[in-house]
């Protein structure tokens, strides 16, 4: 499980830190769970559909009072696409390039898609439909960011 415990060395001299999320009223449970390396997603209280990201209005039933609550999900999914990022446009990513971003459809719901880093490295044997599971990068004290690793690749 080393990949899911990959820790950023953001404290090394001269290394810029990655942007950290700023939790708000809606997202606080998401980031609190991520800090414990658990993936939870917003689920509409009116229609029970998941939404990434949650919004004022439910994207599925269009309720204006969706009452989104965060529920644990498996973190498992399949790769719908990927791209290898070779230029860092954000602070703190220079030391990661090249890195792979994967577009993942989670098993919980059709077209429930999430985009994150694939932590297996730029030469990982990623292909369409490959199985992945959620992993987490610790980028600052108490801050972890969801990512993915290939299932069964190691």
């Amino acid at each position, binding site marked *: 499980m080393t990949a899911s415990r990959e820790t950023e060395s953001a404290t090394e001299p001269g290394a810029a*830190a*990655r*942007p*950290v*999320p*700023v*939790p*708000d009223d809606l*997202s606080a449970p998401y*980031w609190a769970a991520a800090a414990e390396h658990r993936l939870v997603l917003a689920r509409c209280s009116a229609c029970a559909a998941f*939404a*990434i*990201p949650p*919004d004022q209005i439910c*994207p599925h039933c269009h309720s204006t009072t969706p009452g989104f609550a965060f529920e644990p999900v498996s973190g498992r999914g399949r790769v*719908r*696409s*990927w*791209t*290898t*990022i*070779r*230029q*860092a*446009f*954000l*602070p703190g*990513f220079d030391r*990661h390039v090249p*890195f792979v*971003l994967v*577009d993942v459809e989670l098993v919980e719901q059709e*077209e429930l*898609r*999430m*985009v*994150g*880093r694939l932590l297996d490295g730029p030469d990982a044997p990623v*292909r*369409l439909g490959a199985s992945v599971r959620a992993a987490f*990068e610790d*980028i600052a004290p108490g801050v972890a*960011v*969801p*990512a993915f690793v290939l299932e069964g690749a190691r």
Partner: protein
Amino acid sequence: MSGRFAASNKVAVAGYAHSDVRRHISRPLGALALDTVRNAIADAGLRPEQVDGVVAASLFPTSGSHAAADGVSTVTAGWLAQRLGTDPRYVSSFQGIGQIPGAVATAVNAIAAGAADHVVMFRALHNPVGRYHANTMREAAGIDQWTVPQGFFGPLSMIGLPYNEYLQRYGADRESMAAVVVEARKNGARIPWSYWYERPLTTEEYLAAPMISDPVRRFDCDIPVDGVAAFVLTSAERARDLPHRPVYVSGYAGGASAARRLPLHWPLDDIMTGGEATVRRLFEHAGVKPEEVDLPQLYDGFSPFVYFWLELLGFCPRGEAHRFVQDGRIDADRPDGLPVLSGGGALGNGRMHGVPQMLECYLQLSGRAGERQRDRATVAVACQSSPHYGGAVVYSAAPF
């Protein structure tokens, strides 16, 4: 009841002007825009005081840490109208994606409604100093918190994901795209104001350029520039008394409401499903059939959009565009070639955001394309942005 617009072919383009397109122009963008607007008004055979409508497409499209300053990095209709020295009665800026179709629609609606008789519509693009999309943010708040912390940011990953989805799904080679980019640069190299004037690109050069967001190579992306273009639109009746042959606006459509996703997450199926709706509305509104289009100017701000528009407009089956573009079939110099980038597009001119597509439709249909003039150019389509978020306009050389 027909879906055709009541104002179909009731409004026409009567003139244009275009500034030089350069990485950085030493003059302020606002001054350049005002000069270009005045040149367009003169080109249409009008005096500034006859132009009573000003419409702009004013989005400043960057993910970088650049503040938008009116008159400097963007020019709104209000900024320009205030400095035109006249008193236009209709002033409106279109802010959405698909800026040129959106601004054309605003101008057409104003003229059809009688809110203005003569509208000057312009787009001013700015390339700020520093890296165009680099962002120094240390904290990701609001909508950014869902993408930025994991490094999903900016338009290169936005297009890299659906482009790779296309390649993987249809077994296409990324080398096939050379045909699109080389064609755009060949045509752009012939346009005097183009950033790429006299600088065509070879297939070898395309393939030798580095990947920047695989499978997106450097020359799959248009280059950010400073540049302004302006067009004058008026009623079809008034246009017939002006010096140049009118080009009629038959209809337009914009992407309506794509599925809600993460910011800049544009899965291939979203693009194509939303694009189908855009194209269906476009042809209904314009009252033409896809097979009547002989000048489809496709959007190419990122080259994969050419594949998507080709398939959606019905020029080839789904998943076949990468084969369709080979063997000179989109070569505008061949009599049997489909002229999809004859105006050079954004890849051949610089990041002019839909202007090259609209301008080529205007120049060809008004008979003003010079050495590029085609024998047959009667119904044209100018596309902009992604088919699911942007839009398109149908132009006709004759009212029908």
